[in-house]
Each structure stands twice: as structure tokens, then as C-alpha cells.
């Protein structure tokens, strides 16, 4: 199942020649700018509901791409992603509400807080064997939710905490643009990491950690690094989401959130460049469309993921490769 994806990602990490590299970089940056320009021209034409969907989509792209960096590329199936998201969100919300700081500043602080806690907690839990690592990160997500629920005077308890909005206007266009920037920046960062020499080292951890270590790869340091980066992205996305919706609640750090992220990544294609992005777009778009019967839709989605795991473990991206082998991502 992985061979096809491996060659692709190794090629992605190794890169071709210098010149081709520079051309590619220009193309990627140009493409991102063109996409942003396209979004900024199209967004005002859409209704405010469609704009809302776009904002949520951007946030979930950032979340699923960063989880894919952990699970898909490094092989660390962390369940702590919702916890990191909630830590960033609450760090930012509490500073903004209790100390009256500007949301722009507090989002930065929240992101740093998530990165810091990601580094510290990562250093602890990454020592564990796969199965215990999953259990311990699972526990982190639940502890975070419980602590946020219990410290009522500080976090507002299970009702959540009302946060100031990022922009003063009632228009959603600045949010659409900023969330697009968040998503694109995350993708570029993760792709950049995977193209650099770190990319090969990270993949070597996924393929055979023991062998990589024997070859002199500093696996524990790299794993902590990856965990920190993805925690920071999760914290940033969480903090941003909080200041967009205007409320943060402990349910952010729940298995539901984790399940949603996993569904997006698996459906799109785990360990691929485009998979998590495609998955996030399809799942958020469809979830918002089927808002009225959300439970039935989520049920169908879970069923779909189980089927995908059985018949097409590589998700949509692998299916596309199978249909058109010439398609390079």
C-alpha cells in the first residue's frame, strides 16, 4: 500500500536539481498568491453562509495537514491534537478576555504556548511504545477537557468563554482571507519540511525507527521537533477559530474533534501531499451542507471511512493514482 506513496514522498523530499528547485519554488509561491487573489475576488460574491464554510474549511485544512505531518509522515498516531488545539484557543481567549490584550497578540502567545507544551509533553510521551503513546496522548486530550471544564472561575466551565472577535467588522471577508492564508501557510510549511533533508529523516522514522536510529538519525529529537511544530499549528488553528466564532468551549478537546480530523486525513489519503487538504475540503463542505441532519451524515461518513480503510487504504489520492497513473501530485 505504501510503496507508491513512498517513492513519491522521497522524491518530494530529495528534490531535483537546484534550478528546477528554484522554478518550482516560484511556481508554488505564485500559485499561492494567485489562489489568494482568486479567493479575494470570489469571496465578496458569495453569501455569508458560504463564506462561513470557507473560513471553517481553512481552519480544518490547517488541522488535518498538521496531523498528517505527525501520523502520515512520521508515523506518530497522536491523539493529543485536540488538546493542543484547545490549549492554544484557551491560552489566547483567557489573555484576551481577562487581561484585555489584542486578539492578534494573544493568538501569537497561544500558539507559542501550544508549541512549548507540545515540546515538553512530547519529550515525555514520545519515549513510550506505540500503543502506550496512543493511550497517553488519549489521556492528555481527556485531562485537558476535564481541567477546562472544572476550573470554572478561569475558563467559564462547560459553557465556554466568550472571546473578542479578531476583526471589528460584521463582514466575513477578512476572515475568509485570513483563514485562507492560515491554510496555505500551513501547507507550504509542511511541504517545505518534507522537501528539506528533514523530510527524508522523518520518513525514515516512519518506515523503520530502529534502523534509522542505528544509522545515526537522532530520532527522539526529530520526533519532538515534529510534535512541537504540529502542536503549534494546532494551537494557532484553535486560537484563530476561537476568535472567529467568538466562543471557546472544552468540547474542542474531545474525541469528536480527533475523529473529525482522522476522518478527513484517512478519506483524502494518509501520508500524501494533497490527501488531507482534499479530505478537509470535502468533509467540511459536506458537513455544512448537511447541517440539518448532521448525525445521520456523520454516521454515513464514519461508515464510508471504514469502507475506505478496507478497500482503498490510500484514500482518494490513491484512488486517483490508480485511475490515472500519470497523475503526479
Amino acid at each position, binding site marked *: *500500500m*505504501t510503496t507508491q506513496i513512498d517513492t513519491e514522498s522521497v522524491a518530494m523530499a530529495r528534490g531535483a536539481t537546484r534550478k528546477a528547485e528554484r522554478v518550482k519554488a516560484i511556481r508554488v509561491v505564485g500559485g499561492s498568491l494567485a489562489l489568494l487573489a482568486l479567493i479575494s475576488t470570489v469571496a465578496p460574491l458569495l453569501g455569508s453562509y458560504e463564506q462561513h464554510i470557507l473560513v471553517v474549511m481553512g481552519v480544518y485544512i490547517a488541522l488535518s495537514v498538521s496531523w498528517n505531518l505527525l*501520523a502520515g509522515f512520521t*508515523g506518530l*498516531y497522536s491523539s493529543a491534537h485536540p488538546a493542543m488545539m484547545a490549549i492554544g484557543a484557551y491560552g489566547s481567549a483567557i489573555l484576551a478576555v481577562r487581561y484585555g490584550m489584542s486578539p492578534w497578540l494573544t493568538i501569537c502567545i497561544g500558539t507559542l504556548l501550544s508549541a512549548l507544551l507540545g515540546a515538553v509533553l512530547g519529550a*515525555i*510521551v514520545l*519515549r*513510550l*511504545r*506505540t*500503543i*502506550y503513546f*496512543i*493511550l*497517553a496522548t*488519549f*489521556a*492528555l486530550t*481527556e*485531562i485537558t477537557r*476535564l*481541567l477546562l471544564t*472544572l476550573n470554572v472561575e478561569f475558563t467559564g466551565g462547560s459553557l465556554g468563554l466568550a472571546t473578542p472577535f479578531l476583526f471589528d467588522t460584521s463582514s466575513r471577508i477578512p476572515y475568509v482571507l485570513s483563514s485562507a492564508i492560515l491554510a496555505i501557510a500551513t501547507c507550504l510549511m509542511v511541504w517545505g519540511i518534507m522537501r528539506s533533508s528533514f523530510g527524508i529523516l522523518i520518513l525514515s522514522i516512519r518506515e523503520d525507527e*530502529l534502523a534509522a536510529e542505528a544509522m545515526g538519525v537522532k530520532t527522539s529529537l526529530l520526533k519532538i521537533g515534529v510534535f512541537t511544530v504540529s502542536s503549534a499549528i494546532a494551537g494557532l488553528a484553535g486560537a484563530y477559530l476561537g476568535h472567529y466564532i467568538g466562543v471557546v468551549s472544552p468540547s474542542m478537546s474531545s*474525541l*469528536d474533534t*480527533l*475523529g473529525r480530523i*482522522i*476522518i478527513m486525513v*484517512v478519506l483524502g489519503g494518509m501520508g500524501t501531499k494533497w490527501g488531507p487538504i482534499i479530505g478537509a475540503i470535502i468533509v467540511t463542505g459536506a458537513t455544512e451542507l448537511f447541517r440539518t441532519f448532521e*448525525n*445521520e451524515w*456523520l*454516521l454515513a461518513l*464514519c*461508515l464510508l*471511512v*471504514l469502507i475506505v*480503510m*478496507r478497500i482503498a487504504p490510500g484514500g482518494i489520492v490513491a484512488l486517483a493514482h490508480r485511475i490515472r497513473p500519470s497523475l503526479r501530485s
Partner: protein
Amino acid sequence: MDFFLETTTNGIVIGLMYALMGLGLAFIYSIMRTMNFAHGEFYTASAFVSYWAGEAFGLSAIEALPIALAGGALLGWIIVRLVLRPVTQGKVERPVEYTLITTLVLMLLLQKLFLLIFGPFGHQPPSFFGGTYVSFGIFEIPGERIAAGAGALIALVGLYLFIRYSWLGRQFAATAQNRTGAEVIGIDTARMSTVAFVVGALLAGVAGVLLSPIYSVYPTAGVIPVIKGFIVITLAGLGSTIGTIVAGILLGVIELLGSVYLDAGYRDVYAFVMLILILLVRPNGLFGENERLA
């Protein structure tokens, strides 16, 4: 003093339930080397079936029990035969990760299914003991908890007899001990995965049917018990049966004493902090053995 005894007895009863959850997870691990994240849904499913049997047919708790357990066991069989088939057949490169994703998604699926069928509110399955209290001289205990403790003990004894004396149980133990050796003497090891799941579902179902008259059952009722099960097997270290029972009781007693003498709201937080601390000091659990990596 009587208050202390009462709390401790309650703790032991709850601890036995945690042990039932943990044992099921440990059994599944001993055969398949993976973790079942949807284990709590066996607890919920059995409790819901018991509630449904009581509502629809007016059955008493004892009469509903076999139906409820059969429902849970059927669910276990479906999961292992349909969802985890690639793992039992050894066709998956990374069984732990595959099971994590499939069982976690399955957990969400079942929770949504329960939500659609039974609604978001708590239901009370038929009770075993009514609301009466049983007096032990210096302290008294709700009869419901006595029934729960007794039921858990019966389940544990039954499990012991099954593993020790039935052919299927001995095949199971042999497979857990040495998979290759078991295959050499002609044991169908793939079938043992099914046995592990059905036994695990039965144990979790017993806990669900016994506990939900006290705590009531709702779609996400299984989440806390399964997490307690994780903590128990981590405490015990995967692979030790007696250790799992001891760890379960220990966790139940510590939790209740902590919530009575410290702060009740933080009851679940103690358990999680304990889990992380144990993993820090002993990455393979308290009674666990070191495993070869390569």
C-alpha cells in the same frame, strides 16, 4: 470508620467493573497485539439492550441479562469479523495504527447510532435490587452495588473456569502464550481473535448491565469506562491477568477515597495523572514485561 469502610466497599465494587473493562482489553491485546478503542461501546450497547428489553417486553433485570449480553457479544463478533478482518488475517502492515483508526471511527459511528435510536438523554435499565439498602452492622451499602459486585465476581469466576477447563479457553491461553507454538499444534489462531473479542464484549457488557441501573445509560456512557480500562491495563502492564484485577480494584478504591477526602470534581483527573506518572516511571506498566523491539 464506618464511613471509610463504606467508601472502600463502594470503591471495590467500582474497581471490579474497571477490572472487567481492563480484562477485556487485555485479552484482545494478548491475541491481537492491538487496542480496541470501541470497547466502551460494548458497555453501552449491552446496557441499552437491557433497557430496551425491560421497556418493550417488561422483562426483569435477570431475564434481560442474557439478551443484553448476547447483543454485546454479537456486536463484538461483527466488529472482529467485518471491521478488523485484515488485522486478524495478518494482512495489515501496522496493526496498532490500523486498529486505532478503525475502532476510533467505529466508536463515533456507534455513538451516533445510539443517539439516533435512543436519543441524547439518560435511560434507566431494569434494576437488580430495587432501591433497598443492605446493612452490615456498622455500615450499609445500596443493594444495587452489592448486586453489581456479586455479578462481577461471578463473571470473573466464570472466566477463570472457561480459561482453565474448557478446550476453547485452553486454546485461547495457548495462543496468548505463544502464537507460533499454538499454530504448530493445530490451533486456529485467527479464530482466537474472535473469541477474544466476544469474551471482551461479554465482560464489558456485564459491567454495563450492572452499572447502568446506578449511573443510567446514554450514547456516550462508554467513554469513561473504556478510559478507566486503559488506565487499568497500563497500571497492570499488558499481559498480567491477576495484575489487571488488582489494578482495577486499586484504581476504584483510590478514586473514591480521593473524591471523598480530597475534591470530588477532580476524581477522573487523579486517574489520568496516575496513568501518565506510571508511564513515565515504568513505560511498560507496573507488572508488565519488557518486550523485544526487533
